């Protein structure tokens, strides 16, 4: 079978995205959840790259740059918060963080 490269790329991105999604769902450790989200973001980035190669424009790459930057920022803030949370809960289990509900 020979698939059109764009389709293949998008498919790959899609698979990555879904994998990330699944691991967000099944992981309880907040750090891993964060990582999985990063995977999803990068999947999106990949999709952009593929798309831009398909159209032969640079927009996709630029977007990917932005995504990288934003992901970095997010992780940094995220880790800070997780640290905070760990100080209070003494655990990284996200399910423990459920003081607010109803």
């Amino acid at each position, binding site marked *: 079978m020979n698939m059109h490269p764009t389709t293949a790329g998008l498919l790959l991105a899609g698979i990555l995205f879904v994998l990330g999604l699944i691991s967000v*769902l099944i992981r309880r450790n907040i750090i891993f959840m964060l990582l999985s989200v990063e995977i999803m973001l990068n999947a999106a980035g990949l999709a952009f790259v593929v798309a831009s190669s398909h159209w032969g424009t640079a927009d996709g790459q630029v977007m990917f740059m932005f995504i990288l930057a934003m992901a970095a920022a997010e992780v940094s803030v995220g880790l800070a918060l997780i640290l905070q949370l760990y100080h209070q809960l003494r655990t990284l289990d996200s399910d423990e*963080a*459920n003081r*607010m*509900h*109803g």
Partner: protein
Amino acid sequence: MNSALIPAIPFLSACILMLGWKRINRTAVSVIACGSLALSALIAVVAAVQVAQHNGAPQMLQVWNWMQVAGFRAGIDFRLDALSVVFVLVITIVGFLIHVYATAYMHDDEDYSRFFACMNLFVGAMLVLVMADNLVLLYLGWEGVGLCSYLLIGFWYKDPANGYAARKAFIVTRVGDTAMAFALFLLYQHTGTLHIQGVLQAGAQLWAKGDPAVTMIALLLLGGAVGKSAQLPLQTWLPDAMAGPTPVSALIHAATMVTAGVYLIARTHTLFELAPAAQTATAVIGGMTLVIAGVSALVQTDIKRVLAYSTVSQIGYMFLALGCGAWSAAIFHFVTHAFFKALLFMSAGAVIVALHHEQDMFKMGGLKKLLPGVFWVFLIGSASLAALPFVTAGFYSKDQIIWLAWSAAGGGTGYWITALLGALLTGMYTFRMFFLVFYGEARTHVHHRPGARMMVPLYILAVLSTVAGFVELPHTLGHVTLFSHWLLPVLPAVQVVTESAALEWTSQAVSALLSFAGIGMAYMWVMKHPQGMREFLEMPAIVWLRGCWQRGWDFDEIYDALLVRPFVFLSQINSKDLVDKIYTGLARAMEWCHNMMARTQSGILRWYIMGVVLGAVAILSVLIWRLYEI
């Protein structure tokens, strides 16, 4: 002189007494109350004379526009013609006498002025009723007297039983009134007016004899009359109405108000003539009532209840007469009945007071010696009620009815026999009462004798209930027709089909004999063989029958079971208003939704993510799937 004053004066004094409350002292109250009636009685006489001078031409006067809407007009308008004059005279004169009597009777009651306020109010309303020129105003008087009767029956409000009796009276009559209201609606629908004369004329042109519409109307009017006049099937309230003070019973539940039905039918006689069916119904109802009530009167122990049942039965006579088309006869009987029944009630009242408010006849007796004055007047009254021949007014009026029940166009043998049976019964219960009260040995001692203020009215009424008969004598003896002639401009003369002196003689003879027979039986029963009678009465079947009759043929029980209890039951089960349950249910449902939703806000992050993902999947699948659909 302005005849509008006739009802106005009693109203005025009623207002004064009501506002005056406890500030006016008793003498003043009595003076105002009686004086006002005396005044309006005088004016009534004057008015009567005027009417007579214009040989029966009615006096009309419009006071003010009550309501006038788009062609419909009802004014505060009065009309004094021969018929209403008769009623007005009876009401004012008898009313005046009763008031005088009452000043003594109620002397040591703490609500003295309230009593007389209501009495005056009643007289005023009654006068409006009989003087009204249109049916709406008549309805006002009609309900007004109902109100006063309610107020006065329940006058001694501390005892719930009285309150019950009063409510019963009001509600039962109200049932009749609604029938009358329908009649009004129908009349307006067909004739476009409620002005009595207008209605009568329009009706005469509008309907052929026996037209269903007019029959319906007449029947409905009859319904109203039946309610007020305590005829079958709405008679049940009157005996209980005796809970009121005796003057009230005399005035309202004997002399005047209960005859309003008679007045109504006489007033609208044109319609009844157009509706033979309705007229027959009137006669039948009258006949049945007079027998049933007579039987009940036979077995009562309470003296006032006897009189009450006898009133019902006498009004039955009037209805019978009306049904037979003997209009003037009915009115004549009304007049005499007003006199002797008022007399009986008040003398009974005198007895009751004398015996310290003892009403049970079996605890009375031997009063012939102790209360001679009362004895004589009571005797006259009883005689007149039992229609002893020749000397009593009752004889002439009742005899006329009995004869016409046979001979009149609308009459028949059946009616005649009923009427005779009634005569027999009347004689029996009247003198049973009479003997029980005044003969035998005294069972309760008399603690004070009635004073002049009580006795004088009694004497006057005694005279009246003797002489009043002589204004109308049958063909056979004297043939005086002052009364029917006087009524001629309003009420047509009765068509007599079997014009025969011989037959009339027989009829009179039979009726006279029967009343004597009745008296005789009463005598045997009470005086001669009380022992045997008592044994006879103790027989179980008889006991049951007696009980049933005493309870007025158990009509109350039937109505309770059929109407009252179901209504109360229904209203009780729904007292919390089931409709509201719908809304509370709705609120519950909302709360349930809240709880369900609140569960989803578990506070656990992954749960939220799950939510997002599910949403995403849902949206994606919907969109894409739909896309392939198209």
